[in-house]
């Protein structure tokens, strides 16, 4: 008999000896708004709350009225990085924004480099990806490996820039999970809440432990 069968059999036998099994399913989940005191109310409040939360986590938030303004914002973020090169996933939103930045385009590598070696990947000063959702309650960004340009783009470059549309801003983790779960294609998803950090030494907060030191979120529309 295999280990698998042994373990499962032992569990079933163990369960048979319980005094009572209790309910077989928890009587429907309570909506987030009932569990969490800081559940955002209303859509403008949601933008405000996302901004406040992200700022408290040392992330940077920008609101752009249109694609042109998003492009200028992106340019401003990248400006101090002089001669460095960047890597982007050419999702539909990023393509539209980059169309406004022809003079920057040659410094931004796209799809063909996303599969480069991790060594080559380490040379990029910033990675640009598209969010699946933003979570207003916690200031988190939800990304999936298919629509965000893979896994490394979100963690290897020292600066991570995320673009999102107004419709991507959701109130809660629950809503973000639902959106992620509705897509069957990705292999890896992540909820990113602020830049990489550690407090393993005397509980002192240090940003940029292994992942990006900076996280910028541009909300378009």
């Amino acid at each position, binding site marked *: 008999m295999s280990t698998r069968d042994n373990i499962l059999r032992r569990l079933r036998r163990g369960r048979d000896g319980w005094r009572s099994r209790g309910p077989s399913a928890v009587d429907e989940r309570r909506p987030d708004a009932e569990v969490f005191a800081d559940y955002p109310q209303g859509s403008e409040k949601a933008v405000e709350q996302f901004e406040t939360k992200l700022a408290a986590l040392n992330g940077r938030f920008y609101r752009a009225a249109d694609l042109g303004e998003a492009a200028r914002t992106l340019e401003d973020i990248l400006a101090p990085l002089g001669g460095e090169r960047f890597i982007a996933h050419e999702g539909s939103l990023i393509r539209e924004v980059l169309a406004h930045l022809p003079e920057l385009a040659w410094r931004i590598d796209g799809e063909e480099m996303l599969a480069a070696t991790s060594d080559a990947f380490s040379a990029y000063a910033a990675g640009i990806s598209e969010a699946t959702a933003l979570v207003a309650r916690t200031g988190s960004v939800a990304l999936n490996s298919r629509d965000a340009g893979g*896994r490394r783009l979100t963690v290897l470059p020292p600066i991570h820039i995320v673009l999102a549309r107004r419709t991507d801003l959701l109130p809660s*983790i629950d809503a973000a999970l639902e959106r992620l779960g509705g897509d069957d294609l990705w292999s890896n998803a992540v909820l990113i809440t602020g830049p990489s950090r550690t407090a393993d030494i005397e509980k002192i907060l240090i940003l940029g*432990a292994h992942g990006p030191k900076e996280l910028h979120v541009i909300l378009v529309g």
Partner: protein
Amino acid sequence: MAPSLEAQFHKDAAIKAGDLTHRDKILRAIGVNDEKIEALKASQFRDWEAARKLAGEIKDEAQARLPELLESFERGINARGGKVLWAEDAAEARHHVLEIARRHNARSFIKSKSMTTEELDLNEFLEGAGMKVFESDLGELIVQLAGQKPYHIITPAMHMSKDDIAKLFHEKLGSDRDAGAAELTMIARRLLRKEFVSADVGVTGANFLIADEGAVVVLENEGNARLAMACPRVHIAIGGIEKVLPRMSDLALFLPLLSTSGTGQQVTCYNSIVRGPRAEGEADGPEHFYVILLDNGRSRLYGREPFRQALRCIRCGACLNACPVFRAVGGHTYGTTYQGPIGSVITPHLRGNGQWHHLPYASSLCGSCTSVCPVNIDLHHLLLENRRDADERRELGRFWPLAMKAWAWVMARRERVEWAGRLARWGEGLTPLFVPRRKRKRIPPLARRSFAEEWRRHEHSR
């Protein structure tokens, strides 16, 4: 002969309890956490008590359906090209890891923080098999360099000051003797970045196993677990069989719950959900994804009422921080993978070799652990149950049964109690002869008159 585990525990506990520098470091670290956690519970949850009750119920549901949920999890992972392997014990899990390494010609491992892999002593084993292994969580790297085990399930280097760590890095890595926390973190980043981009296998733990989707969920702050599942060719996730949650949507509660209780964060920085190896059309990701489901005594605990409740545990470390005994004796004294109250509840069952029965006595039964547990485990009652369990097995000798008989005889009659009290007051001066000096306890003097005598005097004078 080596001293028994129990004797060793008493020896280490006595040393640590008297070490005031140690106590200072621990109380400061825990104090910083406590304030954040309490504030966050109040600001984030409408009703923290209701939230943890709900979490306990969801975990109970997962337990009631555990075999079926594990099968569902396995189907999900296998359907997306991953592979689920089952391990009866640490040896079988280690064997799986080595087999995977051989199959894929792997020589180097990068590990993110995982208490489950601590059960396996995986680092020592892989190094013994000629592999290169790096811990990548900063706290884990620190204890790895120091040749120690994690001190605390969430904060492995809680017992070391910035200065201790600067000295360690200076000796092992040749860095500046006076390096600050930021500098030390950047040294670790640079050192490990090289290993991340070249390692063959990334090993992570699993905070949750999602049954309906077939997904592994990993929480962290540094980005090292994310790198471990992004860069290497092979990703191995190792998780205990009790880590199952029925639905993906349960994470909406459990992610904030674990982060709040563990580190005082609303959610940790990176919460990764892994459904498989690189999927078709994706830019990168490992070619191979394995999940090792570890039993290692858990199914034994599962079949034992009332102890199975402890399998709800999500390893947040809150009960360690709250425990006055943990604060006094420190994490290493326990000599276990899981320290503090939860460790003292589960270790005697998981190890099942009869050598850990002293652990439930390392508690004042004050109930602090129970009051902070985010999944509502009745920890101090389980500690009490463990004591009963231990006493049933323990060789009591002649003294205790006799002493208990004498006690019962005295307590049966009022006047005997009175006489015993008088006898105790008369012999009070002799007590230092019976209390070993090393216990250093100050024994308060007995009252000059018993309550009953006082009462009678009072009645007379009225």
